[in-house]
């Protein structure tokens, strides 16, 4: 228990200390919100979609959580060759606890980033329904855990940072674009529709959007269940691969 706590604490402390990283990583979501939100807003409205900023913001929050979570997971590569992870791996503690502590820390940071984007979006003009805010938080937590675990799993298998671009362009970006974060998902070609269905973030974005916009529907329970199962599977895979790391 203490191991998990101290690993979590370490990551949260690091997060609050690197102000430039916090601000730097907020640039992208902010740009997306302003450029896309105000740029496509009028067209979306004309097409009868309603207020685009309302539609877009939950997607951007999901994006922020996705990117931050993936990144903290993948950081493990760096950490394991030079750093801290080496020190933890020779300590008399179980790898499972180390992995959980790290994932918990990474997920916490991702959730905090997501919450900051939520606050900023409100300043820009987003109007969430506060009633279901706790439910939105639940979805953010699930997305954060899902992708921190995925990042850790990938990092456990990667030798160096060379593959990072590959993962960004062929995994993270498709996950983001094919999740319904930016546009409604009806009328997609069949093949793409299929990809969207197996993309776990699709359910995260749907859950987050429904809770924030208070358009709560029965599918929400399905979103929750699918995400939860995905989280459990990825956590197990991550824990397994992490336990096999050799340094």
């Amino acid at each position, binding site marked *: 228990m203490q191991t998990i706590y*101290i690993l979590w604490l370490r990551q949260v402390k690091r997060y609050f200390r*690197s102000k430039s990283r916090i601000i730097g990583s907020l640039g992208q979501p902010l740009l997306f919100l302003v450029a896309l939100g105000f740029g496509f807003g009028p067209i979306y409205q004309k097409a009868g979609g309603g207020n685009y900023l309302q539609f877009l913001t939950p997607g951007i929050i999901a994006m922020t959580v996705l990117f931050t979570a993936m990144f903290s997971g993948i950081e493990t590569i760096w950490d394991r060759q030079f*750093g801290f992870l080496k*020190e933890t791996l020779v300590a008399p503690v179980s790898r499972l606890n180390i992995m959980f502590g790290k994932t918990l820390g990474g997920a916490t940071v991702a959730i905090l980033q997501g919450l900051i984007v939520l606050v900023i979006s409100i300043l820009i003009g987003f109007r969430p329904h506060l009633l279901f805010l706790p439910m939105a938080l639940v979805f953010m937590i699930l997305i954060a855990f899902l992708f921190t675990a995925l990042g850790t799993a990938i990092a456990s298998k990667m030798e160096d940072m060379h593959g990072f671009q590959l993962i960004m362009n062929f995994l993270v970006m498709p996950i983001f674009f094919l999740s319904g974060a930016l546009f409604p998902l009806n009328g997609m070609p069949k093949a793409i529709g299929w990809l969207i269905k197996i993309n776990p973030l699709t359910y995260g974005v749907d859950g987050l959007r429904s809770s924030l916009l208070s358009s709560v529907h029965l599918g929400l329970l399905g979103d929750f269940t699918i995400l939860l199962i995905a989280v459990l599977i990825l956590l197990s895979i991550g824990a397994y691969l992490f336990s096999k790391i050799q340094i």
Partner: protein
Amino acid sequence: MEKIIEVKNLTKKFNGFTAVDRVNFDVMTGDIFAFLGPNGAGKTTTIKMLTTLLNPTQGEIRLNGFDPTKDKDDTRRSFGIVFQDPSLDDELTAYENMEFHGVLYSVPKDLRRQRIEELLKFTELWERKNSLVKTFSGGMKRRLEIARGLLHHPKVLFLDEPTLGLDPQTRNHIWSYIKDLNQKEKITVFFTTHYMGEAEKIANQIAIIDHGKILVQGTVRELINKTKTKSLEEAFIQLTGHTIRTETASALDQMREKRKFFRR
């Protein structure tokens, strides 16, 4: 004298390549043991097996009476280690790095505080205890790592090239701490280095390994007499030859290069 480390027939193969080949040696309690060899000789692989990070293909190890492949946690509590690459968290303070280690090794809170203070004073870092490690010089980081490695009262301290990249003043300083420790805390020291002068000055037992095999073991005097040379450096060259080892750069080497670029 008791044996604190016993190694019998230790072998490690990676896909057919034998990195460590039927190695035998003992380290006595209280020794300062230098483990020398050219690059790629099998030093790091041996240390990894001694410290539970790698399982041997064959052979037996006893460290403080424990088997690193079976009694992992007991073995881990028995040693402290300073890796070749710094393994501190730059974004945490010196004290926080120590605290973290203490928690991982479940050192009780009061004892932890007392021991951290004692060790940071010993390595002359107490005044800087609340500074972030990224503001430390290379020598200060090394000292902090040594202090951290000792926090849980280990019986053996492993040091993998502890003075690499440090200036002569700092190197002297580090060795004087290590010698002090060895005397005051009766701790066994097991180290590797490429600076033969340092090994000659500080170690009372030396083993030279090459191509995965131990070539010779003994005191400095014994090694020099055996090879009929004048210094440890000459003895070392005579035993291991003049050829420069060609090593293919591993992913780790490439990252080491990049890290220098990013972090300096």
